[in-house]
């Protein structure tokens, strides 16, 4: 039983019920009906992976390493530090709870499955350790912290976050991502297979 009460506008509830009812989405944690949809943006060639189930979705969108370098240099990082972020397999991530139950997640419980090894994600705390000994300014570190997907979060129905996720692999590498999400205190584990870190463009390193 949730401690929270989400108050919806009436027409939003109606739309949500209509969508669920029409397409027969199943509540979690019932029979597995997970689906991963992949896509590619025509103009940029950037690829996307989206897992969704019962109104909950995690979408990963490739970021070009050069795009990430430019973003963090613009926030005050040195070219060397921005390059180290850009080469850490960074995705834009959109995590939504359009389901009916509250959920929690902890990225420290997620795993990067890479060549038979289970590796941790590079979360805020891990990067903070790096910046403690580096030269990054306070403004740069603040921007970095808030631009990453929160390490831990609780989403009521209707909540969502955008943020970057960093998987710590080199450009061009492929991995599977294991997600662990608690939905109303029931743990579900799902996998998104064959995610590809965006390849770097020659000559784009500092």
């Amino acid at each position, binding site marked *: 039983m949730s401690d929270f009460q*989400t108050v919806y506008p009436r027409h*939003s509830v109606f739309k949500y019920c209509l*969508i669920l009812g029409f397409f027969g989405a199943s509540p979690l944690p019932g029979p597995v009906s997970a689906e991963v949809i992949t896509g590619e943006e025509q103009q940029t060639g950037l690829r996307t992976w989206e897992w969704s189930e019962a109104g909950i979705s995690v979408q990963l969108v490739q970021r070009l390493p050069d795009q990430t370098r430019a973003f963090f240099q613009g926030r005050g990082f040195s070219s060397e530090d921005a390059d180290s972020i850009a080469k850490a397999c960074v995705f834009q991530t959109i995590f939504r709870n359009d389901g009916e139950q509250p959920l929690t997640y902890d990225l420290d419980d997620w795993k990067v499955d890479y060549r038979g090894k289970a590796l941790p994600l590079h979360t805020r705390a891990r990067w903070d350790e790096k910046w403690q000994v580096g030269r990054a300014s306070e403004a740069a570190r603040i921007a970095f912290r808030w631009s990453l997907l929160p390490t831990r979060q609780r989403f009521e*129905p209707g909540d*969502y976050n*955008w943020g970057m996720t960093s998987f710590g692999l080199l450009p061009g590498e492929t991995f599977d991502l294991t997600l662990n999400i608690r939905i109303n205190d029931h743990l579900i584990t799902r996998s998104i297979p064959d995610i590809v870190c965006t390849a770097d463009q020659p000559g784009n390193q500092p």
Partner: protein
Amino acid sequence: MTRILIILFLFAFSPLSLAQQAGKGLTKLPDVTAAPDFVLNDLDGNQYRLSDYLKQVVIINFWATWCPPCRAEMPSMQRAWELLEKEGILMFGIDVGEDEDTIFQFTANYPVEFPLLMDTDSKVIDQWPVRGLPTTFVVDPKGKIVYRAIGGREWDDPALLALVRALKQ
């Protein structure tokens, strides 16, 4: 009707639309806690202290210019402000970690009239229960945090406005 349902399906389930959709509803917090006070400046150097606005409903939005859902909800926040300002309901946008030049440039493309405050060193956001941007709170006239929204919303949605207005009573 069939055409409407097809359009609804395409809108609701395409990856692009999932990324662009606003969130829904306001979460009523179970443990009503006092809103942490702050003193922050706006772009013109005017100082705002939250505790000066006790007895009013205050919407407090934490955001940053580089945050896509923050940008997406700004126009609806402005529309909501145009309705709520004359009713004595306040709205503060608290930018996290950026300077006034960056925010000023942002307002050229996203003109808003409600106060945009600067939490340049992030000391204020660290005192609030925020984990990701944008996060918005609604504070009641007793200075208690009553509602929270994680992710963007359509703030001029009449049903959302009704929840906010109801706190005045």
